[in-house]
């Protein structure tokens, strides 16, 4: 069952087109993350769904009801903002109950819902305090509570964790996931943080310049990025790209890059690779093996920089005239200057057409 549906949505600010004929269907109970760098239109899309921005063209349906021109309060949504947006002059309790009072919900019902939200988010001791007396994490909990008391099916999150420090961020991330698992309602979550996207989402919509580049579950996004942008955006450090040309020799396919030939016969290409075709070979740092015994197609490279990170070790090397990174599990150490043999698992690599930047 579709919970939120966006049809041919366009939005222009004057002559600037922010969203262009965008389509998106979100299932009931789904956790969808809109991911992209700033200015890609992800927050704009969320504001359109919330009814805080008037669309230029297209329709928005929530629970199969056309809400394109309805007020935010009538759409059955709750929203959590990046800056928390708590009313500074009201106590936590009044912040939670404000919307219900405006809607003239009976006081007994208000008390019940506030109590329940406070319990779920464990903010009962804070109810009598003002927002200025709370920490960042507590404020964001209250902000989530404000969406919770509305008893709605669709939650909208606009970069809710971006103002928190790293430790709190991961704590609240888990809490949001737990909340989703227990409430089972639809959540649309805007972020520029790929970790949040990968950990929270049922599906991720990667956006760039107002267009959804790829809409898929996190693992598909990670393993089989649809184009060069998605491939480069997801993953840290980002995927290593080698620009080269397809070459066929003795029944095997190679990508030749600056004198180095990568054997890509194992690559599960969707369309047959044509000899002479200009392509970009993409390999994630964690898919490169170092000094693997028995690896057939190995390339010599020298370590430039080593970044040990405890659980794994990051090497920066030069291969085929360009810098690349390799992530090694465990604590195997390679001091700068040492020579290593690299082998690639082409079964999990990506090859893109150099012109269309689409996955082959």
């Amino acid at each position, binding site marked *: 069952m579709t919970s939120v549906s966006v049809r041919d949505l366009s939005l222009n600010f004057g002559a600037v087109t922010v969203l262009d004929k965008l389509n998106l269907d979100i299932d009931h109970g789904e956790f969808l993350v809109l991911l992209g760098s700033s200015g890609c239109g992800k927050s704009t899309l969320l504001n359109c769904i919330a009814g805080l921005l008037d669309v230029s063209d297209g329709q928005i349906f929530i629970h199969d009801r056309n809400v394109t021109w309805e007020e935010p*309060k009538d759409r059955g949504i709750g929203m959590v903002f990046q*800056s928390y*947006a708590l009313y500074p002059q009201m106590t936590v309790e009044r912040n939670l109950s404000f919307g219900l009072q405006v809607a003239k919900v009976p006081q007994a019902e208000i008390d019940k819902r506030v109590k329940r939200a406070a319990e779920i988010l464990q903010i009962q001791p804070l109810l009598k305090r003002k927002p200025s007396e709370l920490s960042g994490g507590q404020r964001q909990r209250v902000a989530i509570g404000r969406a919770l008391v509305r008893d709605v099916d669709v939650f909208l999150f606009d970069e809710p964790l971006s103002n928190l420090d790293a430790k709190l961020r991961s704590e609240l991330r888990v809490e949001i996931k737990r909340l989703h698992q227990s409430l089972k309602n639809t959540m649309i979550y805007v972020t520029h943080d790929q970790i949040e996207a990968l950990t929270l989402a049922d599906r991720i919509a990667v956006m760039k310049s107002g267009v959804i580049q790829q809409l898929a579950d996190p693992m598909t996004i990670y393993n089989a990025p649809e184009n060069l942008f998605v491939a480069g955006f997801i993953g840290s450090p980002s995927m290593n790209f080698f620009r080269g040309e397809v070459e066929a020799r003795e029944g095997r396919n190679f990508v030749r890059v600056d004198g180095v030939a990568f054997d890509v016969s194992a690559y599960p290409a969707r369309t047959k690779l044509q000899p002479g075709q200009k392509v970009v070979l993409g390999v994630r740092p964690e898919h490169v093996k170092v000094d693997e015994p028995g690896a057939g197609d190995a390339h010599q490279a020298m370590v430039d920089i080593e970044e040990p990170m405890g659980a794994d070790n990051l090497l920066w090397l030069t291969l085929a005239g360009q810098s690349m990174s390799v992530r090694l599990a465990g604590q195997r150490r390679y001091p700068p200057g040492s020579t290593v043999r690299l082998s690639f698992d082409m079964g999990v690599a990506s090859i893109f057409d150099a012109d269309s930047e689409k996955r082959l």
Partner: protein
Amino acid sequence: MDDIASNGMVTAYDAASDRLKAGPRGAKPRRRLSRRNIIVYGTLIVVSLYYLLPLYVMIVTSLKGMPEIRVGNIFAPPLEITFEPWVKAWAEACTGLNCDGLSRGFWNSVRITVPSVIISIAVASVNGYALANWRFKGADLFFTILIVGAFIPYQVMIYPIVIVLREMGVYGTLTGLVIVHTIFGMPILTLLFRNYFAGLPEELFKAARVDGAGFWTIYFRIMLPMSLPIFVVAMILQVTGIWNDFLFGVVFTRPEYYPMTVQLNNIVNSVQGVKEYNVNMAATILTGLVPLTVYFVSGRLFVRGIAAGAVKG
């Protein structure tokens, strides 16, 4: 050897950290009478004397009797303090045929200032709120026109306004003057409120809309409680501006409704009889008292408001 060395290090380190934990010791360093301070404070003292001297002369003169003034030493303190001039200025000084002093003008001014200030601030704050948060079609054009209006000289508009007020049937009344003051306060006040509201976090407004609050609910329950400082600023501007107004008071009212400033002018510039300097001085101080009080009282409130707003919630 190593142990001894590291032990020594440790003790030295402990001593240093104890010293740090204990905090600063000794007398607080005194601020020196530096050349810079002398210049700064010297300039400040000279400038304040320059501005305070006329006030001093006014107060001193207003407390003297006429014989003492005729002696001619305007800086000398009064030999015999008398409040007679103050009483006369307030209740007895004559302008034309009326001899009830400034008191009539004072109450006229109150009846002009209070409604003008309240109405203009109420309307302008809603204007500013609408312009900042509810970006209706043509909002920018509306705002531009409003601001351009502020640059047209008053003199150009006087005669048209007289006609408009006459047609409305309020020419020469206090109502008419209140309307004029309200309108003329609009551009600057709207600008003031618009900029203030635009500076408040936009997400608060959005959150309130998701919560289902409408135009007025957001204005009264979200925006107003956060805007005390700007209301105080607007009040200071309007009270002093309207209280000190002379031109509109003369042009748009009849003598029985003249505000205090016009009354003061008529007392001071009356050509019959002797010039009573002491009465004139007392009358001038009385007229200036209201804006002065507003500055002193709300100035402090204003600073407190700013300070409270600085610690954001």
